[in-house]
């Protein structure tokens, strides 16, 4: 069976570039799973959890808002932030979560509030995928 080439690209670097069997992505219209020979698709990605199958192994990643392009069995995800579940630094994420919560409680206005909210969402997401650990064999 043919494989999919999954690439997750952020402005800083290419976070992931791998041959996979299937990918499940939180798109705006609902969660979608992409298998090989999918039609060309272009859609938005919601902040959430991506998981992909590589052979018998299932792996997880956290992604922020972004875009998904599927073209000729190549999947490109453009996002400003993405991290693999095993790379999440739990302590740091916990700390970031607390900091963001404090900032939110202080009810800062405008820009600060938006930033704090985004950070909180990111931290929660990080922690969620971190619980998945290094992935699992199914």
């Amino acid at each position, binding site marked *: 069976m043919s494989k999919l080439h999954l690439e997750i*690209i*952020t*402005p*800083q*670097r*290419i976070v992931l570039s791998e041959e996979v069997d299937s990918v499940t992505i939180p*798109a*705006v*219209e609902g969660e979608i799973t992409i298998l090989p020979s999918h*039609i*060309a*698709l*272009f*859609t*938005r990605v919601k902040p959430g959890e991506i998981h992909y199958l590589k052979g018998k192994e299932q792996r997880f990643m956290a992604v922020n808002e972004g*875009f998904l*392009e599927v*073209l000729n069995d190549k999947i*490109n995800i*453009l996002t*400003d932030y993405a991290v693999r579940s095993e790379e999440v630094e739990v302590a740091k994420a916990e700390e970031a979560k607390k900091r963001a919560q404090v900032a939110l409680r202080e009810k800062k206005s405008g*820009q600060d509030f938006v930033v704090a909210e985004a950070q909180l969402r990111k931290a929660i997401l990080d922690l969620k995928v971190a619980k998945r650990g290094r992935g699992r064999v199914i």
Partner: protein
Amino acid sequence: MAANIRLLQRRRRTAKNIAQITRAMEMVAASKMRKAQEKTVAAKPYSDKLRLLSQNLIGRIEESKHPYLLPRQKGKTLVLLVSSDKGLCGGFNSSLLREFLRFVKEKSEVEVVTVGKKLKKAVLRTEALLIADFPFGSSVPLFESILPVVNLIKDGFIKGEYKKVAALFTQFVSLGVQKPVFTTILPVEKETEELSKTAVAISYKFEPNTSELLTALMPHYLEMSIYQILLESYASEQAARMLAMHQASENAKDVIWQLSLTYNKVRQERITNELLDIAGGAMGVSL
């Protein structure tokens, strides 16, 4: 005579110190520039893909249908002027200023957002209205740092205050050549025929629809283009500084050489004179 010699020695020492400092600054600039280039390379896959996808969408939507694409007749011009926070970088800021002044002379109703302290004061002296200024910082610009700039530009344009938003920054042509250039940021223009054709050729299934996707994509596209501009300007600044400091080191070397020569000549002359004195004295005694 003696004072003269000491003065020469002191001047030579000063020149040596300056040479040391300029050489250090040259090397710092070189390493900073390398870092900027690495960042640019790392950001390339993202920005290329983003551009291709944006062009695909732009090619499918009528210009008049979307606020980011709509060409406007009336309104002011907003210039994003990217200079540096620090000086000692040769003609970097002055050539930007020259370009800016020429632009202001031709156009009326120009508003300016500056990034970098150096040209802020210069802008205040012109007729153009400075509406915001941001510091550049002395290290590689962070992606987060551009968000307020982008918001300002985006909001102003969407409200219809500006007919055009352009950036004036220093393009990194090569290590030895950097030149100030204008690029249009908004309204987003279709790129050259060839690229847009290949981009549009791919027919995706769009979810939810092209217009909504474009609205979501455009802020990212703007962020990325402005970030690229900042990165490029930073690389140019460092390259300009490297060159300026290299020149300064070379000049200092010349000065040191000249001073050493004069110093040696003066010293020799003094010894000769002393010898003559002694010889003269001895001759006087023997007579």
